[in-house]
């Protein structure tokens, strides 16, 4: 069985992002990057499936973007991915639609049984690529997975986190599954593993070789720093709080 895990390079969630003063995007100069947390969870799940089911399972990490993406792909190799594949393209214009187009082309080439990917990337927060991919391939989908179990033959039982509660579905392979936060706790790549991964090859395919043209459907015109922050009145005690909520804010 082959599992494809798309891994997106995103700004670290530990640091605040700042918008470039001209509104063209975020200020990348000082940012550190990481594998999108949801993709790291997807990769961890794929590795656990391989650990349970044995070496017949192959895990392929896929990055779509510039050579900078290789650092996250090396982290994926260090975590345990068998192969790393980078689709070389201009990632500044990618939207969920074009990501799904590229992934569909990779799926046709690699013929995986399962695409396991994050439910959203924490930069654009779109939450679309997996579903679009499933639609393009006409494959079953199970989004927002918090538990994945294999059933015989070639089926998955997936617990999905929805607004209404935990929904369980069964889907046939091949399929697309997108991961939610509680699926697992991703392992860290050890330093020796990271050192070793530096020497491992990263297969690179150009977008042209893959035969897809990037035609994004979402164009970001402008980015602004969202205004947060309020003048906080520090109250002395509960009585003052209730009084102010009642007579000043008039919310209770």
């Amino acid at each position, binding site marked *: 069985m082959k599992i494809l895990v798309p891994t997106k390079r995103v700004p670290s969630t530990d640091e*605040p*992002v700042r*918008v470039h003063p001209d509104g063209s995007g*975020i200020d990348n100069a000082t940012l550190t990057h990481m594998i999108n947390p949801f993709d790291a969870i997807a990769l961890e799940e794929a590795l656990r499936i391989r650990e349970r089911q044995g070496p017949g399972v192959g895990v392929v990490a896929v990055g779509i973007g510039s050579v900078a993406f290789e650092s996250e792909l090396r982290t994926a190799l260090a975590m345990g991915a068998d192969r790393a594949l980078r689709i070389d393209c201009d990632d500044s214009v990618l939207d969920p*639609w074009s990501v*799904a187009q590229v992934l569909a082309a990779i799926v046709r080439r690699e013929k995986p049984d399962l695409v396991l990917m994050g*439910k959203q990337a*924490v*930069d*654009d*927060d779109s*939450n*679309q*690529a997996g*579903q*679009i991919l*499933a*639609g393009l391939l006409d494959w*079953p*989908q*199970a*989004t927002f997975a918090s538990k994945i179990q294999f059933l015989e033959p070639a089926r998955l*039982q997936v617990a*999905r*986190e*929805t607004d*209404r*509660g*935990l*929904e*369980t*579905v*069964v889907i046939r392979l091949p399929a697309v599954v997108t991961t*939610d*936060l*509680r699926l697992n706790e991703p392992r860290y790549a050890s330093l020796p593993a990271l050192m070793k991964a530096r020497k491992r090859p990263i297969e690179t395919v150009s977008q042209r070789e893959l035969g897809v043209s990037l035609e994004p*459907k*979402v*164009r*970001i*015109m*402008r*980015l*602004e720093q*969202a205004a*947060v*922050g*309020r*003048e*906080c*009145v520090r*109250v002395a005690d*509960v*009585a003052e*709080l*209730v009084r102010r*909520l009642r007579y000043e*804010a008039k*919310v*209770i």
Partner: protein
Amino acid sequence: MVILVVAEYDTAHVRPGSRSALGVARDLAARSGERVEWLVLGSGLDSVASDAARFAPVTVADHPLLVQATADRYARVIADVARAHEASVILANATTFAKDILPRAAALLGAAMAGDVTGYSFADGELLLRRPMYAGATTATVTLAGRPYIITVRASAFPPAEPLAKSGECVAWNVVAATLPNQIEYVGLESRPTMRPDLTEARVVVSVGRAFRSSEEFEQYVGRLADALKGAAGCTRALVDDGITPNEWQVGQTGKVVAPELYVALGISGAIQHLAGMKNSRIVVAVNSDAEAPIFSIANYGLVGDVRQITPALIEELNR
């Protein structure tokens, strides 16, 4: 050409969040001269459809095979109706229902999609959509290429549409069973029953973070305070991770987005991922033992102290 709004409903009523999406649809239609129409999918929809019709004409896709909202079938029917009615825009509230299904419909239609939209404007006749990115730290203005547009809106950013003077018509969509995919088998739903209002629809939300360590404590403090305020109870991811509260109570970037009149944050540090789900609340109250906690920077009222002492005192004061 129509603007199609995919409705969500509970037992017999269209959800207020879907009515917010309908309000946006009406406004867009007022500019373009198009028609607005609900699309309701499910099984046994008579009462839901007549409730929906109070707000707009309804296309009703009613079939036993649509009893559960599985993405394969729903996306197919939505795409079929959108083609037949020449939809220029498909709108819905940004819930997990819409997030699961609509991008798949976008794939079938070759449509352009923007999610979690919180505002819009027009420039040279082009629709500019505003949506949060980076856990709400930034707001992007985006344009879409490729009709139809598929847009999910944050209900908290738009008021629910009011009923029409005269109900719209309900027209049945002919669901052809043989054309429906059969890729996703629904097994069941597990949710923790609660008598409290829905998080996203409540006037008051009482939310709590890592300060409490068990479901019993949660009920004793947060539950009782929520009840005293007739509000809903929410939480941070920390409590869901620890199994203290169910996932559907989580507020934030990856949970629900709320904007109540009053949001009470008890023992919540104020991580950006949590703020993403509540920072547009009208009044925010923060109680935290750490006077430097970031949550105070987005609170209107702050009280420094131990939530184990303050919460019971607050309940008592409210009930006086």
